[in-house]
């Protein structure tokens, strides 16, 4: 396919800039840097006709597959395709990318830029010779919008009308990342370019009357999924004496801990059968154990019985801290749970020991450099 495209390209070259109504042989170059599969083999050249053929084949194949699976071809979604392929071609390969897959050609063959100049060699876009035509034209467009908004503001001021100051919700959305912007423009950007564009967008949104350009701004912002996957707080359980208790699990590095926190207690804490004063001789660890209780102001009110295994001294203390904090959630109002979360008591610490790399002495330390 690539050879065919190459041959055709050479043919075109030999005939020179002959009178031709349409540039049929549009040569593409890839821009995707991150995709290991495509980038590694060098710039691939796919013609538009080829992509069209692939899309037709895909749609036909989708209908055949639906027939094979006994489902309705009209309502056969991508998930159904994936499931069908996994069923028909089971693969035990480790790498997901190496397994057989059937996806829309647009996802497999990355978006590429068409040729930027006409038959006579004259470029279509007026900013072609800047080298980054899409980026600069985007900057021009955005600045035009900015001037628009300022003009509108001036008009409002001239008519003595109040400027609307509706605060845009920052917390719920984010700007496109550099990679997403590169994919949108099909051009490589430098970090500096990207930050300049974001600054300009920020300037536009900070103006009071930026609501008129809301649609344009929305093209470059993404909704952040509201991260609160509502964690279900378990209700209190009661043991034989009628004392309320709650359990929690915690982990830190390789340590795993479970804590059972009882109500109406005197503040005694036991770890693996021993008192915390004996189990944790270091003050820092005991501080960590008491941290959740001290934060909620419930120091002498609860008893805790904990079990812990694995890890070292500090990791075990951290694991028990998390377990106690999780157990305390059942005793406390939702607002206080939110405060605990913002104090960092309910997050699992993801830091673990970094692996040693070959050619180095440790994770970061390199071997002693010898001049000869």
């Amino acid at each position: 396919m690539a050879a065919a495209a190459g041959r055709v390209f050479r043919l075109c070259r030999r005939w020179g800039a002959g009178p031709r109504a349409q540039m049929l042989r549009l040569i593409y170059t890839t821009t995707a840097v991150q995709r290991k599969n495509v980038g590694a083999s060098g710039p691939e050249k796919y013609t538009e006709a080829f992509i069209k053929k692939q899309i037709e084949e895909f749609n036909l194949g989708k209908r055949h597959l639906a027939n094979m699976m006994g489902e309705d071809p009209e309502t056969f979604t991508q998930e159904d395709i994936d499931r069908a392929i996994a069923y028909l071609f089971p693969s035990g390969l480790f790498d997901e990318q190496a397994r057989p897959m059937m996806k829309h050609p647009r996802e497999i063959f990355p978006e590429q830029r068409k040729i930027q100049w006409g038959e006579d060699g004259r470029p279509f876009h007026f900013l072609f010779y800047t080298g980054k035509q899409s980026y600069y034209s985007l900057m021009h467009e955005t600045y035009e919008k900015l001037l628009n908004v300022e003009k509108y503001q001036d008009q409002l001021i001239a008519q003595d009308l109040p400027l609307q100051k509706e605060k845009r919700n920052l917390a719920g959305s984010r700007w496109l990342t550099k990679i997403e912007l590169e994919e949108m423009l099909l051009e490589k950007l430098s970090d500096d370019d990207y930050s300049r564009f974001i600054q300009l967008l920020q300037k536009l949104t900070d103006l009071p009357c930026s609501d008129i350009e809301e649609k344009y701004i929305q093209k470059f912002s993404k909704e952040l999924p509201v991260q609160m996957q509502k964690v279900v707080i378990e209700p209190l359980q009661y043991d034989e004496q009628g004392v309320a208790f709650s359990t929690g699990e915690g982990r830190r590095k390789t340590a795993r801990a479970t804590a059972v926190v009882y109500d109406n207690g005197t503040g005694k804490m036991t770890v693996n059968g021993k008192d915390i004063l004996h189990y944790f001789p270091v003050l820092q660890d005991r501080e960590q154990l008491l941290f959740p209780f001290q934060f909620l102001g419930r120091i002498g009110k609860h008893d805790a019985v904990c079990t812990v295994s694995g890890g070292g001294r500090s990791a075990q203390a951290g694991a028990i801290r998390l377990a106690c904090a999780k157990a305390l959630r059942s005793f406390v109002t939702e607002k206080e749970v939110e405060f605990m979360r913002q104090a960092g008591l309910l997050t699992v610490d993801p830091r673990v020991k970094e692996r040693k790399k070959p050619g180095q002495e440790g994770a970061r330390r390199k071997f002693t450099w010898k001049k000869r």
Partner: protein
Amino acid sequence: MAAPSVAGLGRRLRAWVPRLMQVRWSRYNPSYLEPEVNKELYQKPLEELTEEEREQMELKAVRPIKAAPPTLSSSVFSDPMISKFTNMMMRDGNKVLARSLMTQTLEAIKRKQLEKYHKAPENEKEAIECNPYVIFHQALKNCQPIIGLSNITKGGKTYQVPVPLKDNRKRFLAMKWMITECRENKHRRTLMPEKLSQELLLAFKNEGPVIKRKHALHKMAEANRAYAHFRWQ
């Protein structure tokens, strides 16, 4: 450098891995915010908050928060400056030893001040500061340089150009000088807490070798005033 992989825990801990490997990176996704441990801030009612604080609160409600490190706690005894100083004093990861040295230092300061307090006449008693934390903070504040020197190469020669310092850098330099001073310029038999408490008390009164070092730096900066414009090459 190869992408980081979780040692021994397999795929369970799906912490964030950046697309392109940075040299300095952390296991947290960049959208995670720092935890706020101070209890009082949470007890403030909604009306008393300023605009900025309200925005911060809204942001915190949506974003995930990092886990509090083991050195941080909401107790009245945890002080960020003291923790930082302890970490800088620590050698080979021996936090237990560093912390005990720190507590012994604070105890030594308190003892010395109490001795002075009991010996002083009535009218001077109020002037003597007995709180070791106050003395520690004030001493380090007195040791902080205002201006520093940085090496700027121009025309093949390297010049020492006076340059303003950031707050973090000032604090770091004050603590570093204090620790090096106590490690090097002492008699073999004196212990660290004793020497440190001595130096802190001197610095509290704006005397002592660390303050001298600060003044020396200021003098050098003043002497190199002529090169100040090299900062903006």
